[in-house]
């Protein structure tokens, strides 16, 4: 298939590249842009390791055509660290052992980022439901809940400190 020129906006930066019209967003991110944070864990969009945000909504980049994402804001795990430092959720995942092997973690980061952006104080059940599209084989999810609660707490304290 002949390549076509496309323009993608990833983590706030514009990239112009040539890609086949049938090329998946995940492959473009990983192979063409070198953003290998998003992972491929399955063949059938069942694991969530490739989750990215498209205009703020979590989507599986393994089932999106790259060409169809033109003109949209794509956020990958590489774009989560804020203001040159780890985001609260990234630090909390480290502190609470939310990441063991870490292969699923980029996907979880994106899902949690969406969750907290839309529901700053989720209940345990809301957290569980939100995470259910991402698979983890190491942690049993337990320590992720603690990390998420810790991150919410840290954000709240951070906000309180900055509004003082």
């Amino acid at each position: 298939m002949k390549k076509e020129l496309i323009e993608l906006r990833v983590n706030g930066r514009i990239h112009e590249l040539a890609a086949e019209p049938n090329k998946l967003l995940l492959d473009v991110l990983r192979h063409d842009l070198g953003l290998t944070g998003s992972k491929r864990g399955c063949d059938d969009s069942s694991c969530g390791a490739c989750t990215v945000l498209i205009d703020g909504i979590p989507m599986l980049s393994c089932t999106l055509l790259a060409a169809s994402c033109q003109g949209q804001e794509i956020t990958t795990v590489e774009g989560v660290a804020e203001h040159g430092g780890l985001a609260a959720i990234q630090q909390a995942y480290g502190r609470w052992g939310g990441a063991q092997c870490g292969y699923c973690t980029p996907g979880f980061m994106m899902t949690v980022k969406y969750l907290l952006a839309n529901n700053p104080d989720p209940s345990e059940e809301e957290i569980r439901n939100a995470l259910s599209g991402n698979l983890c084989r190491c942690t049993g999810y337990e320590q992720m809940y603690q990390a998420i609660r810790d991150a919410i707490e840290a954000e709240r304290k951070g906000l309180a400190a900055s509004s003082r």
Partner: protein
Amino acid sequence: MQKEFSIIGKPVALVDAAQKTTGLGKYTDDLSLPGMLVGKILHSPYPHARIRKIDLTRARAVQGVVAIVTGQDAPTSYGILPIGHDEHALVVDKVRYVGDNIACVAATTEAAAENALELIDVEYELLPAWFDPEDSMKAESNLIHENKPHNIEKEYHHVFGDPERGLAEADYVAEARYMANEVTHAAMEPHSTLASFEFDPQTGKQGRLTVWSSTQVPYYLQHKLSLVLDMPMSQIRVIKPLVGGGFGGKSEVIPLEIIAAVAARAAKTPVKITYTREEVFWAHRGRPRTIIDLKTGVKNDGRITAVRARVVQDGGGYCSYGPVTILYSGALLGALYDIPNVQYDGYRVLTNKPACGAMRGHGTVNVRFAFESQLDEICAHLKLDAAAVRRKNLLKPPCVTVNGLRVLSYGLPECIEKVANASQWPVRRGRLGRGRGIGMACSHYVSGAANSIIKSDMPHSTVNIKIDRDGGVVVYTGASEIGQGSDTMTAQIVAEVLGCSMKRVKVIAADTDLTPIDLGSYSSRVTLMSGNAAQRAAEDVRKKIEQAAAKKLNCSQEELVFRGDLIWRRGAELENTGEQLRAQGRIEGQILRESVLQERKEQDARDHLSFEEAVVAAIDFSGTLTGTGSYAPPADARGGKFKGAGVGPSPAYSYSAQVAEVSVDEETGQVTVHKIWAAHDCGRALNPVAVEGQVVGSVWMGLGQALQEEMIWKDGLLMNPGLLEYRSPSSVESPEIETFIVESVDPEGPFGAKEAGEGSLAATIPAIANAIYDAVGIRLREAPFTPERVLAALRAQKSQKKVNMTEGVDPERPVSFREHGGSLCFRGKGPTRHPLDPAVREQSKAEQPSPVGGDD
């Protein structure tokens, strides 16, 4: 000595946590090299067939194809065990399972490689295939491996004590068949390998090989590559980048790891192969389907008199870790409790399915499920309390078990206490009303095998440390970080011994050019063995610092205290000013100009040194500052002398006790686990967050095997080779797990630490089975406890008919759907079969699907 540790025992984030949460860490598939090709493998569509001819002409013509390799390009056989060299990276004579590796195409793009695969013409001669281990054991002809009569890979028969007499003395003997179906690791990262040759400047030909691979065992990979490629080990460098989970699935050499190197050799340019998820399921090496015939004799008070077990494992088409698995099943059967008489007959059987290998809780899990379930049945029969019976049968350490395992620390009693109290066991067991119940079970596991796979006297782990004038501590360890926290554990131990901050310590791990030999991450060996080596290396280097520091501080070496990046003479009053000094030391240490050093020298005698000052003094004193340490298990922990005694012995054993609370929906058969209380004796928790993570992860993985995970086969074809169909539990299916860390401080472990990563898994399955019995009075003897199996048992309970679930017989079974998990519902079209295939003959004999299962 110091009253408490400064780093050990405190929760710390994994040293590579930020790499993982930012996506910046590199796993093998994230790597690429200039000119790198994509490798794709052609897999067998038949379970058992001889290969008559492979024609590559059409495939070679595809644009973009650079090289195609077949078995002829690497005809040397290999296997993880020296006694099991029965595999080829690419088959040379016949295929032995659906998914066996036939050829590999290296091409410029994935699409080109896949197109070429379609155009490889292979002529097969179909052979009768074996799918059920008990059928396979009767095989006279069409053997899977010609040198394995009756398709039996290995059998072991062990007798300890006098089981005959033990059973005769018993007041009650329980006997039943248990079965646990096949499960797989399903680590989130699919296997991946990148191989690249360098040109030798002298000969101008291909020289050194570098392999980046998702492996738990870089050293074994280097060893097998050397064997198959016929190259000296010194010419092969294996680098383990981040690994996205292993659980045993990456603890041996997986075909793609060798195929990538063979393809790179043929293509004369780097080749990367990454499995698809489906290929990962075919590569497998998971926990075999296990049939356990178990007999336990007890006195009326619950004291166990004897255990007799016959275990058959469905091992798949190759040896893999098979003999070790079947030996672990026996060795760990009778070593959790004090059982005076044990008889064990274990059969590892070959079938035409992907090879089974090591999986978390290697060998012990399924047998532990059977034993702990039977113990619960005995308690129910004799109306005894399950916790009390377990307490009655405890070992009395230090001791040696009946099969020769040395036990020094034994936290099991405390584990039982913790979970019984937390779950309010005495008042809640049997009193939650129909539909809800709690169950208890225990388990244990080795902290590394005391005898290595490749017989030799070399240490199992070695660690080197280098400290330079900048005060940075670089630790070189062969231990493989696979997410369990091995790098963090290493950094913690070194920092603790040297009294420096974690920040100073940089761990370089698992690169065979840089790091000394370590056997790898399997059988929960890393904390105990690499941890001990790290501790010894740090003590070695500390001694050199001590010599210099003692001179500087005018005191003896014994008087020195290393702590908080400072070294002082014991008794010096540093408690109040410690923080300030520490800050000073750090700033000065970073600069370390000669002028600063000079200034220091001119100062009066001081009562402390900063870490950098001490390091510089030591380097000035001895030229370099390096240390080394290694660990080999002690002779008296290496077990008995009988055949098969090599598997089971370990320097130390971890212990677990668990209580599970479940409810059973009698309409749908759905079992819901509400909570699991899990206590684990890990000796000492070096990093409590990591220990909890390992325990929760084990319990959770056990939960998957207990309720829903199962590999379903139809004529050797895997029916559920995807994460969606395999159904490991998601966040909504995962219960609350409350962990209790028990510290028995083992004399053999580094700071007393033992394993934490596997032992808890085995207790979860029987704890849930026992809870289901408490809830609705049905005894499920086949795992997983799917709604179908639960419903069948409930119907049997209602109609009061005897049902042996493990034989798939349920008289009340609806005819329209397969009741009993597994293969019968897939009596549709499988792959083409040989006319003499036992399954084909069976089918033509009886057109009706028979209710007696077992062609899987």
